[in-house]
């Protein structure tokens, strides 16, 4: 018999009930927070810069970005819809810290520590994630970084961006904006003007960073935007694996998160950057949630360098990002592995950008998009092979999975090749979670919710296996929870 085209009839009442399940990280922590007045103007930028006691050159860089931003209009080409953002109604600086400086993680405000415990992130160095160093960022500031001293012994610098501006100004000045210039795009320009904190990592020549470095982003205060900036530099022959995670409270109003991440890999260096993004996605009617408008780019500037992005995106009301790699060094490698889920009324326009400049450069894009509920999922990717990129190769695979009949998925691949020796392979597929697959699992005794999660996890397996082990487990759970909250 022929399979019906809709699968919703199979979704039981239990699953539908789960659709109303609350977002797990939606709590608000009551912390005394110092906030700047609402709105954006030169005064606010000077205030942020002054709060952070920044050098003059950085303030000037911010102001140049701001002046440029004033000439820009928000992009409209992305396949998502949302009302206009009132940039004068956003708070650009919120600091949850007590006034005094802390010298060790033990002095972190107990309420902040409790907040991170609730999120499953330990700020105690002896506890669970002992192989992972964490930089914890709440709203606009870093509240602490673990294992800093231990890492310093082998020359690895891992600290908040604000701290790096003071302790390693020469490195910040050299690389800030070198991959994502302040004129790059509307949101990157805004970020350049108002960025508040983020993480900074520097791995010296020949050092293989012995632990995972991670940043945990948390938006806590209401009506604030989070504009963080992360900069990772791997010197010749260095290696680092880095992970970011993010959550936010449930609020009725949308909150803007416009981050910039810049990675620089010199000769023979390797950077592996993994993201588990779980910003509040908004409620079932699409009210509230984070606008996640992020610019992430790596510069594989050295020979044989390698940059990999792995992302699991389950949160945010709107996700709009294209982590990419500029393959400048000969034989350099760029990779992008992505699982993106849109459920409820979430929208995503995401993909990757691979720019081949050096000879024999190689890039791989594996994108798995899952839409459920009323989710809207768009893959958009650019593979650009310049004239100099002799012998460049790209492999792209975009797979979409639809759950239910009210969701949608699109694929927009852009390919530009100015070199006859370039090789590009592109594969795409769209499938529905089959009624047959579900029935098959259930006939074998596997309950429906577990069956959905099993099928989806199978679909994503190629990407999950790229994640560091413990985060792969987290990612699977996260996906399961996100789906439970959305099918029906």
């Amino acid at each position, binding site marked *: 018999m022929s399979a019906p085209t809709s699968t919703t009839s199979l979704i039981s009442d239990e699953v539908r009930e789960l659709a109303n399940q609350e977002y797990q990280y939606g709590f608000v922590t009551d912390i005394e927070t110092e906030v700047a007045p609402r709105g954006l103007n030169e005064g606010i930028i000077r205030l942020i810069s002054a709060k952070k006691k920044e050098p003059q050159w950085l303030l000037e860089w911010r102001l140049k970005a701001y002046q440029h931003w004033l000439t820009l209009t928000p992009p409209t080409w992305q396949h998502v819809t949302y009302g206009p953002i009132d940039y004068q109604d956003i708070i650009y600086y919120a600091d949850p810290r007590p006034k005094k400086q802390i010298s060790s993680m033990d002095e972190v405000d107990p309420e902040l520590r409790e907040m991170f415990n609730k999120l499953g992130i330990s700020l105690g160095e002896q506890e669970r994630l002992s192989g992972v160093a964490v930089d914890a960022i709440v709203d606009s500031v870093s509240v602490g970084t673990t294992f800093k001293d231990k890492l310093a012994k082998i020359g690895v610098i891992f600290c908040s961006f604000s701290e790096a501006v003071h302790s390693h100004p020469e490195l910040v000045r050299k690389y800030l904006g070198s991959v994502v210039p302040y004129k790059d795009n509307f949101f990157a320009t805004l970020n350049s003007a108002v960025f508040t904190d983020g993480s900074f990592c520097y791995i010296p020549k020949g050092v293989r960073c012995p632990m995972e470095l991670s940043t945990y982003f948390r938006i806590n205060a209401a009506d604030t935007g989070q504009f963080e900036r992360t900069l990772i530099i791997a010197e010749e022959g260095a290696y680092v694996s880095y992970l970011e995670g993010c959550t936010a409270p449930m609020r009725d109003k949308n909150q803007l998160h416009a981050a910039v991440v810049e990675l620089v890999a010199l000769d023979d260096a390797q950077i592996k950057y993994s993201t588990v993004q779980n910003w509040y996605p908004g409620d079932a009617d699409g009210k509230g949630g984070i606008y996640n408008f992020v610019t992430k780019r790596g510069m594989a500037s050295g020979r044989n360098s390698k940059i990999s992005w792995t992302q699991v995106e389950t949160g945010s009301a709107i996700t709009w990002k294209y982590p990419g790699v500029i393959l400048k060094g000969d034989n350099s490698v760029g990779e992008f592995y992505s699982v993106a889920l849109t459920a409820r009324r979430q929208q995503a326009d995401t993909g990757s950008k691979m720019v081949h400049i050096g000879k024999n450069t190689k890039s791989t894009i594996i994108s798995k998009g899952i839409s459920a509920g009323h989710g809207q999922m768009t893959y958009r990717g650019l593979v650009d092979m310049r004239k100099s990129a002799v012998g460049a190769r790209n492999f792209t695979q975009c797979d979409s999975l639809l759950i239910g009949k009210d969701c949608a998925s699109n694929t927009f691949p852009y390919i530009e090749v100015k070199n006859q020796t370039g090789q590009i392979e592109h594969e795409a597929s769209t499938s529905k979670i089959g009624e047959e697959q579900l029935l098959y699992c259930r*006939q*074998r*005794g596997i*309950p429906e919710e577990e069956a959905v999660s099993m099928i989806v996890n199978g679909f994503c397996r190629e990407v999950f296996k790229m994640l560091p082990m413990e985060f792969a487990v987290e990612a699977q759970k996260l996906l399961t929870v996100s789906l439970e909250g959305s099918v029906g």
Partner: protein
Amino acid sequence: MLKINELRATIDNKEILRGVNLELKAGEIHAIMGPNGSGKSTLASVLIGRDGYELSGSVEYEGQDLLALSPEERAAAGIFLAFQHPVEIPGVGNMYFMRTALNSLRRGRGQEELDAVDFLSFAQERMKLVEMDPTFMNRSVNEGFSGGEKKRNEIWQMAILEPKLAILDETDSGLDIDALRIVASGVNALRNEGRAMLVITHHQRLLDYIVPDYVHVMAAGQIVHSGDKSLALELEANGYVGLTPSLAQVGVAP
């Protein structure tokens, strides 16, 4: 064990089952034969709880109202279907899939779950029944399997889940003679006093290997003839033509 009474099933305003009556006891093997479109596979679908049918009549299974149960509850109650067209599930390992399935059933029965090591040795032992290569466990469920491999995989699953009532929906279709022999001997090895089987097939050939206690002929949504295994041979010789009067009786043009 199973008592089907005046079962009717309609889909898209078309009545496919038009009053099926059938009774199976533990330990019995019943074969259902019949021309294409007679409702054999629909009967299997209704018994495992496929959605989309309007139903009337009743199905009693071990004293329970079977039609009130979800597909997974029916599986937990011991009903198994070897699918005619087993579906592929990319990225989900065969072994993981079956361990999850078995442990779901065990949980439901209040038994302890099997860990990966115990499951592996049990699964490997069961693979011998259908002469499958252990590497099949590491592959994704049915992905890239040949027709014969899929059918063997179904019987392997049956051997693991040890159902009380096994329904085999055209398990012989698409099998060459060697594969047919392997699948049939796997099924025979699972034959026992506590287990009933309902074997749906087009061909008498399968019944040379899996010898049924009863043979039923289905036509136009009803069981129109029942007999012992000699009925299958008769059908092989004369085809379904002899049933035309019965078709007329149920009001369908031949």
